[in-house]
C-alpha cells in the first residue's frame, strides 16, 4: 500500500535558507544542502525547495544548490520559484531535481504546463496553487480563488476549475497552499484540500497551516491529501520528521518508516 508522504519545504534566497533553522538542541543552519541532508537522513520522503531569490541574474546560485543537493540526497526533490520557461525547467532538471513546480507563470501562461509535460513528462511538472477563500460567485463557484505573486494579486479564477484544467494540460501533481491558513499554525484548510483532492486524479500535497502533528493527520485523512508539506513545524524543532512519522503510524496512517 502506498505511503502518505511527508515533505519538508525550504525557502532559499541567494543560496541560503531564509528561516533561521534551529534543529532540536543543535545550532542554527542556513545551508540548504546541509538541511536537505538532515531531513533526508530523518526519513523525509521528498524535499521541496522554493527559490525566492529576487533578482533573476542571481538564479545561477540556485542551480548550484540543486546540483550539490543531488549529490547528497537520494530521494526525489522539486524546485519552484521563478520557473517561467521550458529552459528554466530544463536547467533545474538537468542539475538534478526530479520535479519543477510552476505557479504564477502557469496561471498567466497555462501552455507552459503542456509544453513542460511534453518535454520532460507529467511526473516532472508540479502545479503550485495559492488559494484564497472568497464568497462564491458565478466566476468562482467553488468559493476558492487563485491568487498569484505570493498572494498579492487576485486572478478572478476559480481554484477548482484551474486545478482540473492544469491536470488536463498535463500537470502530474498539485501542491495546494491555502493563503488563509498559511502561517497561522491552526491547521491545513481541510475543506479546500478535500475539495480539490477529491476531484482531480493526480496527487495533492496539502500546504499551509501546520502547527502540530494532529494537523498533518487531519489533512491526510479528512483532507484526503496524498502528502503534506511541512515547514516551520520541523524547522523550529516542534518535532522531527521521525516523530511525525511515528505518531502518524500510531494514528493508523501508512507512512514510510525507514531511517537510514
Amino acid at each position, binding site marked *: *500500500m*502506498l*505511503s*502518505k*508522504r511527508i515533505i519538508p519545504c525550504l525557502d532559499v534566497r541567494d543560496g541560503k535558507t531564509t528561516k533561521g533553522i534551529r534543529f532540536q538542541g543543535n545550532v542554527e543552519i542556513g545551508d540548504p544542502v546541509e538541511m536537505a541532508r538532515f531531513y*533526508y537522513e530523518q526519513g523525509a*520522503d521528498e524535499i521541496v525547495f522554493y527559490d525566492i531569490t529576487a533578482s533573476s541574474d542571481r538564479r545561477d546560485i540556485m542551480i548550484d544548490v540543486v546540483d550539490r543537493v*543531488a*549529490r547528497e540526497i*537520494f*530521494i*526525489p526533490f522539486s524546485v519552484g520559484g521563478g520557473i517561467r520557461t521550458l529552459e528554466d525547467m*530544463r536547467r533545474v*532538471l*538537468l542539475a*538534478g531535481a*526530479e520535479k519543477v513546480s510552476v505557479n504564477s507563470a502557469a496561471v498567466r501562461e497555462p501552455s507552459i504546463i503542456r509544453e513542460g509535460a511534453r518535454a*520532460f*513528462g*507529467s*511526473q516532472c511538472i508540479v502545479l503550485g496553487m495559492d488559494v484564497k477563500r472568497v464568497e462564491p460567485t458565478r466566476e468562482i463557484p467553488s468559493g476558492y480563488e487563485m491568487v498569484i505573486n505570493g498572494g498579492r494579486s487576485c486572478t478572478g479564477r476559480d481554484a477548482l476549475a484551474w486545478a482540473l484544467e492544469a491536470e488536463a494540460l498535463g500537470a*502530474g*501533481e498539485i501542491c495546494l497552499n491555502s493563503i488563509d491558513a498559511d502561517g497561522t499554525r491552526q491547521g491545513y484548510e481541510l475543506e479546500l484540500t478535500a475539495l480539490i483532492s477529491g476531484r482531480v*486524479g*493526480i*496527487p495533492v500535497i496539502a500546504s499551509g497551516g501546520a502547527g502540530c502533528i494532529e494537523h498533518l493527520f487531519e489533512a491526510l485523512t479528512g483532507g484526503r491529501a*496524498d*502528502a503534506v508539506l511541512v515547514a516551520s513545524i520541523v524547522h523550529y524543532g516542534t518535532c522531527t520528521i521521525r516523530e511525525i512519522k511515528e505518531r502518524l503510524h500510531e494514528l493508523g496512517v501508512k507512512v*514510510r*518508516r*525507514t531511517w*537510514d
Partner: protein
Amino acid sequence: MIAVVDYKAGNLRSVERALNRLGVPCAVTADPDAIRSADRVIFPGVGAAGAAVEDLEAAGIDRVLRELFDRGTPFLGICLGAQIILERSEENDAACLGLLPGTVTRFPSPLLDEAGERLKVPHMGWNGLRKRSNHPVLEDVRETDEFYFVHGYYPRPAAERYVIATTEYGTLFPSVIGTRNLVAMQFHPEKSGAPGLRILERFARWDGRDAE
C-alpha cells in the same frame, strides 16, 4: 565499468550520481560500442515505452541490448527499463524489445483500495515489495523497506516465474521482474534512499546468475 544507457541526451543523471556515491565506475552513454563493451548495463528512464524503443532503434542500441542479454551481461532495467524489455506495451499499443515474454499494462480504472476508495493514477510515492524469490540483487531488501514509484503502467510478464517481487496498489502488480542475467524494477532505486542504494550496490557486484 557499468554503462548507463542514455538514449536521449542526458536528462537522467540520477543513476550516475547514485553510482558515484557508491564509488562504482560508470559511464552515461548512447554510444552502441561503449555499451557493447561494458561489463554491466543499466537502462533507466521515464516516459512511454513505444517512443523509447523507437529512439533506441534509431540509435542502433536495441540490437546491442539484445546482444548483451544473450551474452549474459548483467542487465538492470529501471522504471521504463522494466517495461521496454517486454514484448508489447498497451501505452499507444507499441512494440517493445521482447527480451521477456509479456506485456505492459495500465492500472485498471477505476482503481480502488480495500476500503473502496478511488486510488490515483499514476502510482506516485513510496511503496513496499513482497519478494517471490531470493534474487541476489534484492538480498538486502527488508520487509519494511519502501521504494519510490512513479508510473501509470506496469509490467505483466507472461509467466509467474519471471516475477521476482510484487507491490500492492489497488491490485497486486509485478514490481521486480527478470530472468537469467536480466533484472528489472518498476521503482527508482536511485531515488529510494539507502535501501535503493543497497540494490544498486548489489547489482554492481552481481555475476548475472539468478538464485535458482
